[in-house]
């Protein structure tokens, strides 16, 4: 099936990029995964429009883009409430909507959360690079020409643009995440928690941190308590692989939560955010308060299983509703 011109960017917003679930298998070549920071919202957005959960979507933040629709298509917006509108009329989040040719999707202010995901029936059609359509912004490849969207860009839609009868599908309201200005993130200690004295570990769990303005897609920088390592050890460690959610502590003691654009690093890491709380990392805003809570692996697995169950339940529901 041919790709069809589907979306024209009429204003780019602060930063709008093509993302899917990320690029895996190339870490050995120094290639970071990139991908949606809030993967939960991206997966649900895709399921709402009848895609498989790993299709490419647009990720936008704070002030969203203006997008003109070039062909009839089903769309859904999930994630943070950036006040999405169709032809200036507010539309519901976590629900699929029929857009007609020449309709305009626009956004207002961020009411809650930080990032929104825009899914289109059929998925955003950009050529996969190393098996993924995600944009790697720091190195400038993947996604739409390796960069964030600009005014005038025309995005293709893969395949048939999905069935129009998919409009009106809703995600279970009880399962929609609530975003606040204060976050509790669950972590598992390690890999280098033993490099920190007890009072640092105590301060890490009991202190309140704030997300700094200097944060970006590579990492959430935190202000608050300085977390210092034991005095008799070197400032850096031998470089090793890292993953998103790793909380590294540079020499100045200010924690950085690594996001999906880093593959190796030479700073020690006190703890790691659990998989079930990774989607929240995409929704924390500069200025928001963050507290950490250490949990056991079993608690982390249980939380991950619960998240996957919510997605799978919805997947089963959408699959059965597609039956003739």
């Amino acid at each position, binding site marked *: 099936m041919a790709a069809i011109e589907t979306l024209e960017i009429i204003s780019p917003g602060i930063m709008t990029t093509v993302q899917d679930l990320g690029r895996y298998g190339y870490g050995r070549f120094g290639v970071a995964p990139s991908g949606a920071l809030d993967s939960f919202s991206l997966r649900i957005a895709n399921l709402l429009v009848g895609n498989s959960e790993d299709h490419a979507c647009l990720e936008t933040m704070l002030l969203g883009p203006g997008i003109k629709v070039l062909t009839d298509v089903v769309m859904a917006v999930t994630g943070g409430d950036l006040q999405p509108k169709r032809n200036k009329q507010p539309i519901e989040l976590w629900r699929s909507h029929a857009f007609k040719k020449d309709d305009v999707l626009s956004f207002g202010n961020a009411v809650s959360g930080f990032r929104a995901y825009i899914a289109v029936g059929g998925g955003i059609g950009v050529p996969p690079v190393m098996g993924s359509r995600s944009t790697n912004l720091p*190195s400038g490849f*993947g996604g739409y020409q390796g960069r964030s969207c600009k005014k005038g860009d025309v995005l293709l839609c893969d395949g048939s643009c999905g069935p129009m009868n998919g409009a009106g599908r809703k995600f279970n309201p009880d399962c929609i995440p609530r975003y606040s200005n204060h976050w509790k993130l669950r972590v598992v200690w390690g890999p280098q928690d033993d490099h920190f004295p007890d009072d640092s570990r105590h301060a890490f769990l009991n202190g309140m941190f704030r997300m700094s303005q200097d944060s970006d897609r590579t990492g959430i920088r935190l202000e608050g308590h300085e977390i210092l390592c034991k005095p008799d050890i070197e400032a850096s460690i031998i470089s090793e692989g890292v993953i998103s959610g790793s909380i590294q502590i540079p020499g100045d003691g200010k924690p950085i939560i690594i996001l999906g654009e880093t593959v190796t690093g030479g700073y020690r890491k006190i703890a790691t955010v659990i998989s079930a709380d990774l989607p929240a990392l995409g929704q924390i805003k500069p200025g928001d308060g963050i507290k950490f809570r250490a949990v056991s692996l079993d608690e982390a697995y249980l939380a991950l299983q619960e998240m996957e169950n919510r997605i799978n339940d919805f997947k089963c529901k959408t699959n059965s509703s597609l039956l003739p």
Partner: protein
Amino acid sequence: MLYDSPIFRLMGDRSLLVELGDEISPSVNQSVQELFTVMDMRPIDGVRELVPSYRSLLVIYDPLKISLTDLKRTISDTHQNLDQAELPEPRTMDIPVVYGGNQGPDLASVAQHHHISPQAVMDYHTRPTYRVYMIGFTPGYPYLGEVPTAIATPRRKTPRILVPRGSVGIAQKQTGIYSVDSPGGWQIIGWTPVNLFDPQGQPPSLLMMGDRVRFQAISAEEASQWQP
């Protein structure tokens, strides 16, 4: 020192750091390469990504598909039988470098730091056959070692916001090549016209862990006429 058995360090609920030694050394790195190669050849269901580095292998997995206990057991078994691992013969790449000038702005200060001439820095830098210890930092960026002690130099106090692709740098006993334009704090002594990273390439990186690299000094004119 190479550990007798791996030290497992948890990196969250979905990745495991398998540490094989406590230092940067060819023997420790060789073990990492062996473990990586065998685990890559015999994929384990549920393992998503393997990231080898100086002295450890990061194993990213799906904890809902494979339990941590099973994963550790499989890795320990593999590690015990590494003697049978056969690594490919290392490839050796010659990388041409224009030393000094605008593209090697720190050559003079590295020379001053060691009270030697810029020519001597070049001679030292081109002497060893370096080992690619790991690819990381940015796509295709090789960490090479070891630099002769006579020119080992600490990182710059203030990192540069933009280091051009192809820049050749030194940080202590490591040397490396910036594979894409990026920020960086290494002492930049030269520049290579060789492209280290091509997103469309298969593989996308010119170099891999375990490869060997030799630097060759060329003139700016030779670099401008350089053909891949």
